[in-house]
């Protein structure tokens, strides 16, 4: 299922390496003690909690193992993983429940 070519892969790896480093270095390297504008910080606080759900939702609603057809068991395993993460505040328990749920899907499906 290698649908992308080597060149694309390496462009992404190198681009991400440079981009990630720039993000991490920008402030500590150049900004010194100056403060960022409040409105910007306020939006940045919500990048991860917005982008990740936006990425995940279509993958859960139209899961690839069923060929993109909405499936109740897949939705249930996804809901379980999320709920365990939210309730326990622990990524590891959540991931473990998710993997167990996935194994169940695999064995039953």
């Amino acid at each position, binding site marked *: 299922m290698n649908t992308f070519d080597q060149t694309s*892969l390496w462009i992404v790896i190198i681009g*991400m390496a440079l981009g990630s480093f720039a993000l991490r270095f920008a402030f500590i*390297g150049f900004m010194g003690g100056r403060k960022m504008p409040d409105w910007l910080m306020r939006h940045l606080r919500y990048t991860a909690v917005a982008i990740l759900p936006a990425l995940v939702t279509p*993958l859960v609603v139209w899961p690839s*193992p069923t060929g993109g057809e909405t499936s109740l068991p897949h939705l249930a395993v996804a809901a379980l993983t999320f709920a365990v993460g939210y309730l326990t505040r622990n990524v590891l328990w959540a991931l473990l429940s*998710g993997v167990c749920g996935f194994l169940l899907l695999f064995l039953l499906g």
Partner: protein
Amino acid sequence: MAITTTKSLFLRGLIDSLPFLLVASPFGLLFGVLAAEAGLNVLEALAFSLAVFAGAAQFTALQLLQENTPLLIVLTSALAVNLRMGMYSASLTPYLGDAPMWQRACAAYMTVDQSYALSIVKFEDEPEMTTSQRMAYFFGTTSVIAPSWMIATVIGAWVGAQIPASWGLDFVLPLAFLAMIGPMLRTPAHMVACFVAIVASLPATLMPHNLGLIVAGLAGMMAGAQTELWLERAAARSNAEQETAP
């Protein structure tokens, strides 16, 4: 009272970071497995982890690459997931900004969720630490995590290459993300951002080239920021009312 030398602070950071191994290793393993499923060889998977060293962004890029997304959107989305590193960097600057440039450059590379979370608490608790002591602690927190992330990736990629694609392992990727999202939702504003992003993401899939991801993400960010403002204003109003009440 213990003597806080630079060396002992490095060790302190190292020990404090050990519990995080339990989180970093499985995710590194999973990244390796999914990278192998996506057609990357062990070397490519390792290069990915070494060069980028940011779990969530690596998973994002891997998923989008497989959907034949234009490279500009792959990069924008993955870096958007990594924007929080910019925030971390900004908030560490008052504590580490005086260190020599080469140390700051190394620290920038090593800025991940774990090293940030541990260090910022330590630096706030012990304001008398010097910059070099802070750096020692900071490097301590990543000196085990970073190599184990790389090793886990290699093992994962090697194992993943033996797993047939028919197992449908790609569904583990959204599950891994869901596991990360739950613990991030600490305030009502986080929940609003998450909810708006979810609702927006479904119709947004109609947009070409996975552009909808960025649109839905921005919608969530604006919703979160706006909610934070409203809640702050509401709190300020109710405080003011209480003070003026007879």
